[in-house]
């Protein structure tokens, strides 16, 4: 009498795991529509892309993007918080349908998962006030620029900077930003996310982008071989770019318009 529930559970388990297996082989897009739920892996520790709001719900660029895609698919969204190390495993093991987690594209990742079109800008660039013109590295001639010593932007900019650009290198991001805000440097080189955070927190001195140093936009990750889902998400991203919804998300979280090349 004691064994029966166990056997029943075992049988149920077998059926469930079979179902799970078949789910992996079936088309994920169909499954999403059938279930009415899109499961998305999002960051929760990387503002402004994903963080936890005051009501303990996730907020950010990536969360808005997940909601946008779910809306266009006509399904509900289920957010799964991930970290930067486990976001790809969540996709490859089928725990999430999509990864929208400020994910950059590189050859190693492309071996494991597929990427849609870019949905968010992520770059290092030169930033400064609106009234200072500097369209490229050569235009920096004679100016004073602050940068965090040893950062990607320091290394890249040092290669292309003109001779008479005064580069002041600070110990950390805070030093670089303080130097800019207090007017000790005319321009700074930093990440667009950092610039957005500064613009959000202070209106002492605005940071607007002058030119890009290194571009590494964010893509939505889909499981290998899910071409139908990938095509659908690309379609949604294109539509959101066209009708200004993506622009609005960028305005909210990055305080900056989308770059033209995205």
């Amino acid at each position, binding site marked *: 009498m004691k064994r029966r529930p166990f056997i029943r559970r075992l049988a149920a388990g077998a059926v469930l795991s079979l179902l799970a297996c078949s789910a992996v082989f079936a088309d994920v897009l169909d499954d999403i529509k059938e279930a009415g739920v899109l499961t998305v892996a999002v960051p929760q520790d990387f503002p402004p892309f994903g963080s936890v709001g005051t009501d303990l719900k996730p907020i950010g660029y990536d969360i808005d993007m997940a909601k946008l895609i779910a809306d266009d698919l006509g399904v509900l969204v289920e957010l799964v918080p991930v970290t930067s190390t486990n976001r790809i495993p969540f996709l490859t093991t089928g725990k999430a349908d999509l990864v929208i987690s400020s994910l950059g594209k590189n050859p190693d990742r492309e071996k494991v998962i597929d990427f849609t079109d870019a949905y968010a800008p992520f770059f290092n660039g030169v930033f400064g006030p609106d009234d200072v013109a500097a369209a490229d590295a050569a235009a920096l001639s004679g100016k004073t620029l602050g940068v965090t010593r040893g950062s990607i932007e*320091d*290394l890249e900019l040092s290669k292309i900077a003109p001779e008479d650009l005064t580069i002041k290198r*600070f*110990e950390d991001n805070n*030093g670089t930003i303080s*130097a800019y805000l*207090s007017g*000790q440097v005319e321009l700074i080189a930093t990440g667009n996310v950092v610039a957005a955070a500064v613009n959000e927190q202070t209106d002492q001195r605005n940071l607007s982008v002058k030119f890009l140093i290194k571009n590494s936009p964010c893509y939505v990750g889909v499981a290998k071989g899910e071409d139908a889902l990938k095509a659908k998400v690309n379609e949604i991203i294109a539509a959101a770019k066209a009708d200004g919804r993506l622009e609005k998300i960028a305005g909210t979280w990055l305080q900056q318009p989308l770059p033209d090349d995205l």
Partner: protein
Amino acid sequence: MAYEFEFAPVLEYTDLLLKGAFFTIALTAVGAVFGIGLGIIGAVCRAWRLQPFAALFAVYVELIRNTPFLVQLFFIFFGLPSLGIHIGEWEAAVLAMVINLGAYSTEIIRAGIASVPKGQLEAAASLAMNRYESFRYVVLRPALQTVWPALTSQVIIVMLGSAVCSQIATEELTFAANFIQSRNFRAFETYFITTAIYFAIAIMIRQLMLAIGKRYISGRLS
């Protein structure tokens, strides 16, 4: 496993290190001259209770000696521009060093002045020396003579403390070291050499102060 030293990647930046060392020495020299000058003025005001300067110096000394040098530096470099006073990283570094050394040397020299026996002043008065003469020969000289070793070590402390000026992008020795280290990732070798340079500068300052002391402070009047 033994660490394999490789100095070649650091020696590529010899120019930068020498430039950094030069600026550290320059910062210290300017800081020491004006800092000790400020210290003498402060010490006299405090020792002779010249109000209201004595009170002002008392506040200044307490304020500077009870706050970190790095914070003073940030206050000058990042804080003053907000009040509309714009100064570059060199001026900020020099100013911070003068202000810092000024406060410490005020107290050191005041101690020296306090150590001059009252009878010596009375003796000077009985020899019909005027106020200036008795101050110069009977008070200041022996006072400096007494505290010269303490002043020397304070100058060296300030020189070593100038390392934090790298935080506001002043391109002195530590800045050069951090810069090199962030490019070639040879931290051990870079700081090894930097340490040696700091040591050499410190010894140099000590010898120089010793010579100055012998020649101008404790030497015979010509």
